[in-house]
């Protein structure tokens, strides 16, 4: 099949992006995700829903986020012009809130009063707790016990916002276990509960609706670069955990064949060590958390724990649309180790006066090489999807600095 000019037509009616995606859930949840899809289709056609989103995006989140020319970083590498899409300036400090607003508004349309969410680093949990506070909804956040321990500031923020935090002891106490536990809660509380998934993964229609809500990033960036430079960029770049910030940036550009789409996965200590979170570069297709996608797994199909310095990328899978864009050749996926991300974190902080989160530091670490291959008249847009305030303690630890 010729996939050209059809990249933005996915998923199909069965929730598939090529051979990825789908609805791999226990029967108890099937009626719920079918309902959610129906409600989402209705919301998409409802101008009221869109107007409410736009209003909150402008006045609550602070959109549009600026498109910033990173002049000193551009000079430093001496290649293409580097622009940052400043989604770290959003309310709550990351792109996560774009999606939470959309999902919580959907939940309210469906009459659900209780919102559950999983979180790793705590950014999605904080964004969900924030939106729930704004609308007076009950919020329960599942977080691996290990992560609760290493992300104390975010745990406290969520509690301040009125959320209940459930530390998950099962498995290894990280993001995937939090997601398992959220799914267990959902099958138990089907009547009143809405599951607000934090990334563009999970059973259909989640990968699609999370992508659509996050696509505000790419739509703005496209408009802003056209206004500023009078042309489209040559490449757009973003880090990938589950892949929601990346798909939000990529999607409005998928039909523009001259625009390279470059994702950067976290390779932890290195893909060859087995201690990484690079599902596309070091995994195999499989089925987990409702979708068929690339997963870190052993020869028996058991899921292997991911490793990354960045808790937000520490997940053994990836959104199914990225699996599709990779296998179809439309997008490229590079990797970045913990150490490289730490260096890029410091470089950006010193050259641009912007402390990036460890997640986008992974994309920053590869941007120099990509920029150097290109001429000074070419353009790269990178999504600076989160700010680094949350990471300063862990960075200090890695640099051996006693705070």
């Amino acid at each position, binding site marked *: 099949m010729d996939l050209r000019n059809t990249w933005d037509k996915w998923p199909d009616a*069965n929730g598939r992006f090529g051979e990825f995606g*789908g*609805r*791999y*859930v*226990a*029967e*108890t*949840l*099937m*009626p*719920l995700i079918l309902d959610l899809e129906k409600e989402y289709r209705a919301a998409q056609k409802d101008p009221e829903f869109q107007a409410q989103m736009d209003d909150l995006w402008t006045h609550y989140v602070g959109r549009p986020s600026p498109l910033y020319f990173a002049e000193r970083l551009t000079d430093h590498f001496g290649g293409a012009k580097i622009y940052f899409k400043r989604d770290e300036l959003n309310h709550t400090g990351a792109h996560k809130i774009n999606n939470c607003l959309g999902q919580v508004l959907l939940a309210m349309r469906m009459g659900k009063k209780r919102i559950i969410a999983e979180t790793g680093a705590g950014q999605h949990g904080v964004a969900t707790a924030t939106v729930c506070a704004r609308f007076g909804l009950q919020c329960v956040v599942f977080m691996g016990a290990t992560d609760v321990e290493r992300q104390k500031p975010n745990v406290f923020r969520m509690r301040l916002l009125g959320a209940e935090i459930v530390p998950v002891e*099962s*498995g290894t106490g990280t993001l*995937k*276990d939090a997601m*398992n536990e959220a*799914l*267990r809660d959902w*099958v*138990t*509380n*089907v*009547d009143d509960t809405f599951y607000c998934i934090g990334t563009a993964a999970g059973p259909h229609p989640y990968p699609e609706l999370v992508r659509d809500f996050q696509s505000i990033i790419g739509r703005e960036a496209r408009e802003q670069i056209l206004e500023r430079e009078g042309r489209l960029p040559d490449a757009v770049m973003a880090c990938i955990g589950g892949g929601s910030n990346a798909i939000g940036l990529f999607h409005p550009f998928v039909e523009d064949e001259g625009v390279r789409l470059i994702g950067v996965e976290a390779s932890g200590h290195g893909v060859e060590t087995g201690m990484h979170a690079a599902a596309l570069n070091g995994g*195999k297709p*499989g*089925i*987990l*958390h*409702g979708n*068929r996608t690339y*997963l870190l*797994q052993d*020869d*028996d*199909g*058991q*899921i292997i724990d991911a490793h990354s310095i960045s808790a937000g990328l520490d997940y053994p899978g990836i959104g199914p649309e990225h699996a599709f864009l990779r296998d179809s050749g439309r997008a490229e996926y590079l990797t970045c180790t913990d150490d490289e991300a730490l260096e890029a974190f410091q470089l950006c902080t010193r050259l641009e006066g912007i402390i990036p989160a460890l997640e986008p530091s992974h994309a920053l670490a590869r941007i120099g090489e990509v920029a150097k291959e290109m001429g000074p008249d070419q353009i790269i847009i990178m999504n600076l999807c989160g700010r680094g305030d949350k990471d300063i303690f862990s960075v200090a630890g890695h640099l051996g600095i006693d705070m």
Partner: protein
Amino acid sequence: MPVSRISAAFDKARSDGRSALVSYVMAGDPDLETSYQVLNALVENGADVIELGAPFTDPMADGPSIQRAGQRSLAAGTTLKDVLALAKRFRETNQTTPLILMGYANPVHLMGYEAFAEAAGDAGIDGTIIVDLPPEEDMPLREAYAPHELAVIRLATPTTHEGRMKTVADGASGFLYYVSVTGVTGAKKPVASDITPGVQMAQRISGLPVCVGFGIKTGEQAREMAAISDGVVVGSAFVDIISEMAQGKSREEIVESVARLTRDLSSGLNRNGGVA
């Protein structure tokens, strides 16, 4: 004749005037030899159908008991191939008790549906319950199973309304597993009067035997559920007994406790109220 082995077991229970006892244990918990002895104890003491759990790292539909059983099994190194080998060993001496493999999609998907179907057929497995393969996603599995006559056993739940039940029934074989509560295995306690309409709808629409499970732990609960269904599934209660090996109980004691619970449950399933 795997599918027919399942129907024969339900036919026999029905002609005995009772509901079938479907017992679940996690293969390889805490080791494969214990599982083998437990399987035989189940059958000798009145279990009609056996569900053999295949461990998975991320069992999203299971409560703490079965989660931990899976972790113990994985810690002992159990693989999907080991589970099939256990089934094969059981079949050497038992050709009548249906053996249903219950697990999650990823290990089966990685082995490949066709390779798995062939291996399962060869091992004497009669059907599978793959929790996260709903009707929308199990077509490749059904195609792979057809030549081996393996049953695709589907789940119906309290959230399954009439329209949805038709989808669930279409392409299902062997029996239907009616999940008695919204929730995970072994958590909430089911109430017979709440689920009777759902079970009857499942029987009417599917034309298959309907077994009720999730949260049934005692002989008394089993008796209550037997009155409204073709079979009663007990899992976490067996798994909890087996978990005591980790606290130092011997294999002999565990097998004896499993046998005792099986007799207790089995005696409650006689619809005429007598002791089977």
